[in-house]
């Protein structure tokens, strides 16, 4: 893969006297200067509010914003009118749970989630089902950190006729596990069950085609895929979107308003009340350009290669246990581990001394950690700009931590 490091100004930073090794990409990715420049260019030359103005700047801003929507749509193989801009995956998933859920779920219904969901694909459903008297049930991952299709079938059968939606991550933010969404959709749809997908950890790392997955809702964030923070996407299948009520009301989403009532414009603008995050959408479009320029398959191959290298190196460390799939191909660039008698926070602190940024804790998946009796894990997550040298530095830091604390 071509060297992209020079495009990322932040990678020139020094932390504690060392060159920054950024391995916290599952939390947020760094931004190439092309993305930073696109935002600066928008505010320097085109800034105006969208959709309403007759003047030149407003028309330019509207075009840039709608072009960004088209870019996102084509990137995931969807229609632009199915792409709703949100502030991120969390908002997107909340909107599915609250907006679709409140109208379509009733007492006794079941929402199926995996046992390793991020809190943002768990708590909205807990809250929503409380209101309507429905129930959340969990698909159990196996010892390799995978959700098998047999488990999906089993849980659907156990709750015969009650499961209305499966809401599941495309790739786990703790285990790295890539979930077989396409196959799950096939099983679910045969029973008339909808599928909502948290794609926050998948879209940045692999080619995602909504059409091929055949899911019903798909959510992801811009900031984990080289784009800015505060912009995300909720994709909804057209037939469902047409029946969905808006969840926020205000400017920009109306057809006609009297003192008594209002009628609303069509999707997706109907779901974007108020001034949208125009610069965010433009930054995201620029990030997609950047990713497409390298090629998603190329990015995925680089990730698998780095996974193999990292897993091999980690296995050499005494008392270190890797969580999740053993096979490099079954993961995105997320690898979490525990070291016997050395706390994850201490490992992260020692690594910080080496300029290596990793995450430690429960990674917004507290129930999974409790279930497996792990208090905290150390998570490394790499991306297209990471190298084998970065992993060597990581290993050096972990060895130092175990020497000090083990």
């Amino acid at each position, binding site marked *: 893969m071509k060297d992209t490091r020079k495009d990322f100004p932040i990678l020139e930073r020094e932390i*504690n*006297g060392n060159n920054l090794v950024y391995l916290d990409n599952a939390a947020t990715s760094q931004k190439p200067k092309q993305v930073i420049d696109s935002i600066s260019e928008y505010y320097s030359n085109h800034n105006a509010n969208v959709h309403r103005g007759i003047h030149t700047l407003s028309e330019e801003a509207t075009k840039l914003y709608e072009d960004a929507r088209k870019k996102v749509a084509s990137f995931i193989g969807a229609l632009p009118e199915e792409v709703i801009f949100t502030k991120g995956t969390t908002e997107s998933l909340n909107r599915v749970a609250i907006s679709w859920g409140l109208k379509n779920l009733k007492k006794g219904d079941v929402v199926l989630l995996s046992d390793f969901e991020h809190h943002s694909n768990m708590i909205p459903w807990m809250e929503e089902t409380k209101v309507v008297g429905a129930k959340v049930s969990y698909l159990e991952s196996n010892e390799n950190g995978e959700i098998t299709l047999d488990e999906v079938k089993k849980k659907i059968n156990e709750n015969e006729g009650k499961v209305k939606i499966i809401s599941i991550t495309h790739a786990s933010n703790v285990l790295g596990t890539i979930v077989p969404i396409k196959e799950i959709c096939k099983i679910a749809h045969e029973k008339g069950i909808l599928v909502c997908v948290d794609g926050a950890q998948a879209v940045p790392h692999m080619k995602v085609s909504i059409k091929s997955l055949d899911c019903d809702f798909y959510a992801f964030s811009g900031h984990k895929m080289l784009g800015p923070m505060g912009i995300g996407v909720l994709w909804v299948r057209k037939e469902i979107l047409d029946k969905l009520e808006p969840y926020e009301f205000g400017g920009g989403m109306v057809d006609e308003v009297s003192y008594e009532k209002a009628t609303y414009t069509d999707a997706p603008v109907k779901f974007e009340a108020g001034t949208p995050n125009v610069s965010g959408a433009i930054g995201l479009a620029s990030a997609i350009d950047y990713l497409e320029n390298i090629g998603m398959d190329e990015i995925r191959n680089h990730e698998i290669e780095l996974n193999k290298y990292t897993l091999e190196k980690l296995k050499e460390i005494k008392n270190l246990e890797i969580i999740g799939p053993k096979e490099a191909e079954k993961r995105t660039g997320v690898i979490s581990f525990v070291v016997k008698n050395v*706390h*994850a*926070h*201490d490992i992260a*602190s*020692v690594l*910080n*001394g*080496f300029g290596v940024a990793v995450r*430690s*804790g*429960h990674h917004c998946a*507290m129930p999974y*950690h*409790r279930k497996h009796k792990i*208090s*905290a894990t150390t998570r490394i997550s790499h991306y297209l700009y990471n190298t084998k040298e970065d992993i060597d530095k990581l290993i050096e830091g972990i060895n*130092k931590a175990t020497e*000090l*604390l083990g």
Partner: protein
Amino acid sequence: MQDNLNYQEELMDIYKNPHNKGKLNKPSVSVSKQNPMCGDEIKLDLNIKNGIVEDAKFEGSACSVSVISSSILTDYLIGKKIEEVKKLTKEDLLKLINLNLTTSRVACATLILSALEEGLKNYTKEIVKNYEKRN
């Protein structure tokens, strides 16, 4: 190696052999506290007699900062008057443990302090309840 938190030898000694680790037989008060950042849990037991902390013990799996802080704080507590202990602030504790902590690690150090605060509150409530019962 430059680090915000220096893993100095004497501190590592405390981490590996902390004081007052364990539980008390019949504690006057016992409180468990969780750090929502990592899910760590620490339990603090206190024996209080005549307004004085006679003994203090802690247990739980936690990071070095949390263990060091718990060890130093329980050492400090033993023999102190409750009224004095109640006045202990976060700043006092950080001075006491003397670690150069980054913002994110302060929560690890103060986990034991929030257990102490809750413990003292529960203890006071219990005293008031017993007093009201007697009268």
